[in-house]
């Protein structure tokens, strides 16, 4: 199981690509899928590499990304 996981709100994503560059683990890429506004939205191309660091979400201008991380045993 990957350490991190994202929920990307497709309708918020504007396909700017900033998250793709911000991700230190090359997790993200354009999906080729257009949303209702006509934007090419991103998806997790390599979900297994995600560490849940949240860089992508910090960078996203449209607050389209929620980040989840492995529960660390208390």
């Amino acid at each position, binding site marked *: 199981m990957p350490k991190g*996981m994202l929920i990307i709100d497709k309708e918020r994503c504007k396909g700017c690509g900033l998250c793709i560059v911000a991700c230190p683990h090359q997790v993200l890429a354009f999906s080729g899928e257009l949303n209702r506004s006509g934007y090419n939205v991103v998806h997790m191309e390599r979900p297994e590499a995600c560490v849940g660091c949240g860089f992508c979400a910090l960078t*996203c*201008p449209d607050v389209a990304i929620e980040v989840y991380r492995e*529960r660390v045993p208390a």
Partner: protein
Amino acid sequence: MPVSTEKMVKVFGRPASLTEARFTYCPGCHHGILTRIIAQIIDELGIVERTVGIAPVGCAVFAYLWYRCDAIQASHGRASAVATGVKRANPNLIVFAYQGDGDFASIGTAESIHAANRGENITVIFVNNQVYGMTGGEMAPTSLVGQKTTTTPDGRDPALFGYPIRFSEMIAQLDAPVYVTRQALYDTKRIVDATKAINKAFTNQLEGKGYSLVEVLATCPTNWRMKPTEANKHVAEVVTKVFPLGDLIDRG
């Protein structure tokens, strides 16, 4: 995919102070990042119920739609004066003005400088994207020498139109301001730094210390005619040469 987050903890989500409204900004525009940061700090400080945001005229004119706090849409350039009126009328409110470079440093020059000079206990966020975004890409007072805009089609010629104005440096000449800083958003580190700076600018107000100004170097991919990623690089490599990052005053 929600299934797979079942056993995980949410480490980053939509700040509670943000409404559900979608931003009207162009793809990759830094206005969005900044809006999220401010909401997050309103969350962190727990002040959403006593905050009043002043929306400018500019691409951020819709700012009143994004936050779950009260808001006022100010006339072009006068957000700092409107903020003054609000804060003086009710000092318990936490007041922030969000202003573009055209708004803050051109038409609003007098209101910006004199609110700072009076040391109004407010927080001003000054978004320097070196262009008039809203109106379609005209020169801003902060536009770089040689920068092509719709009103400087051959590039800004300093002999005719002067030099990019370092407004924060001017404000830093005044005695009253407690905190004047310049930040950027072109990578994760700068985003984290900017977040801290904005937190401080709000905290100063909460503590009654006085006027804080956070200038933020931002992109306008649309009017710069660059891809968002190129625009980020441009800020990092070119814009910060003219507008160096860092604190100019910290009397906190």
